[in-house]
């Protein structure tokens, strides 16, 4: 099982690779949803990434904009289901 730091690193790398535009400076606490980097439609692909990568299933009711709003929070969410 990946440790917290490794998870943070992997999720951040994915977010930058998939969602960041040319000029976005993304860190572990950058607001992803409220900051407009990841919209509600794209959140579905981010959820799918977490489920595939960590072999978990995140219930839809837990996949709220608040629970996906930055990498640190996402890591806590993922840890709930590992």
């Amino acid at each position, binding site marked *: 099982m990946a440790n917290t730091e490794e998870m943070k690193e992997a999720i951040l790398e994915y977010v930058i690779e998939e969602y960041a535009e040319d*000029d976005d400076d993304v860190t572990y606490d950058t607001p992803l949803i409220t900051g407009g980097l990841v919209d*509600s439609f794209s959140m579905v692909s981010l959820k799918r*990434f977490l*489920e595939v990568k960590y072999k978990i299933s995140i219930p839809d009711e837990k996949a709220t904009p608040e629970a996906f709003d930055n990498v640190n929070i996402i890591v806590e969410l993922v840890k709930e289901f590992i």
Partner: protein
Amino acid sequence: MSNIGSYDERVKNFSWSLAEQELEYKKGDVINIGWYCSDRICDKGMADKTAMIWEGRTKENLKTFTFNDIRLYSNTIGDFLRKQGIVDNDRVCLFMDKAPELYIGFLGILKIGAVAQPLFSAFGDESLFVRLDNAGTKAIITQKKHAGKVQKILDRLPHLEHIIIIDYDGKKPLREKEIAFSMLEAEPVEKFDIFPTKAESHSLLHYTSGTTGQPKGVKHVHYSLISQYLTTKWVLDLQPDDIYWCTADPGWVTGTSYGIIGPWSLGITLCVMDSGFSAEAWYAFMDRHKVTMWYSAPTAIRSLMKAGDDIIKNHNLSSLRHLASVGEPLNAEAVIWSEKVFGKPFFDTYWQTETGSMMITNYPGMKVKPGSMGKAFPGLTVALLDDKTFEPITEPNKSGLIAFKPDWPACMRTYWNNEETFQKKFKDGWYLSGDKSTIDKDGYFWFIGRDDDVINTGGHLVSPFEVESALLEHEAVAESAVVAKPDEVNMEVVKAFVTLNPGFEASDMLELKIMNFIRKKLSPLAMPQEIEYMDKLPKTRSGKIMRRLLHAKEWGEEIGDTSTLEDD
């Protein structure tokens, strides 16, 4: 007292000349939306009134603009464009987040007689390309974060002469055709020669999707102002002291007709939130700015419902006076919920990119039947047509195609470079909306659905054809079929069925890769939320994919006649 007063009286005595008189416009006069939304308001003594309260990604990032500011800045942008050689009828694309330059630049483009072409900033490079290519766009105004997508397709856009970057910071050198422009730092242009556009002068090009073919550029003209002004006044019921929040992005028609033109032509203060969605952020924004009139969309409303009622208690939303909704049918539960938590219902409004202004709506003072679209705007001739004979249906509660006589000021004038498809939207003098509904005995419309395969997701139309074509460009996909799938929040989402090329194996990781491929190529809206692998797709004996069967499967409907289905 509401602006409309008695709906029935308005229907009896209606004439569009009412709006013309209020706007002091006479047939044959110059009519320029850019001027009406800024200079005229200043001339009416409201130069110092706040026109826009803009909030960026943090609440500290706040800017306010008076009507005199937007007059000056739109002059400045218009002047800059002219100096780049942009003239009347040239298409100028606005491709950015909800920055102040989007709203003010829109007016600047119109002031020089050029055509504004706003595009949703989340579009991927291919979606951007087909729209810029079709329009023959001469200049694009964008932010440095989005400029990379333009550079990626620049080789294929020979007519694109200028990429104007509004937030250039000098950290990287400007690339081919890029030019920096700072609205706030440029020398303000006090006196400006506004282009004398007339009623039929082209103002705006909004792209919308159909079942087949590429997206269609809907051509609107400056005379659309007449419809947009009056519908804003009567349906949104905006009053001089209102703080108005239209949550739509001006990349879509609601964001221009009712996010810019309607409110500013009435001299109303609007507020803009340039950040993403969360229930907490939205309620806090409305509380902070004391929003009085809120125009939003069912998808957002259902997301707020999902977030629960407790969160509302942390905010003072007592300033809210009137609520309205657009984009897709507003379910009865949402209307009832808003009455419970805000003490007032959302008023549903129905219209389309092609109609340019509201067509069937609920009105202040008129009883709201939760789940109904309401009644036709005064002055409109509307009917439900039989889908085979195209004859008007007279009995109540019988389903038919919603059709309008195309005689309202904001009706589209054509599809850009696609007159043939435009003509197909008309039958026996009726504009065919492509939507079906019933009318009850009291004259209220009740939405049923589309009469084609177009997917309405979160209030935005997605062409299954466009997604299917893009899927085929992925190396793993051999065949594809795309349909709508029911969704609790977005009403519908995109679902894809695919068969794979030899050498590729179905897996969750491949599904994710295909999803992201479409998201980046087209847009997040077009991204399939689910991909189902199949050994073969259902086809007719002539080889046509039977999308209808897949749609029926998703919606739990009868699959109907399968006599033409290819045998195994």
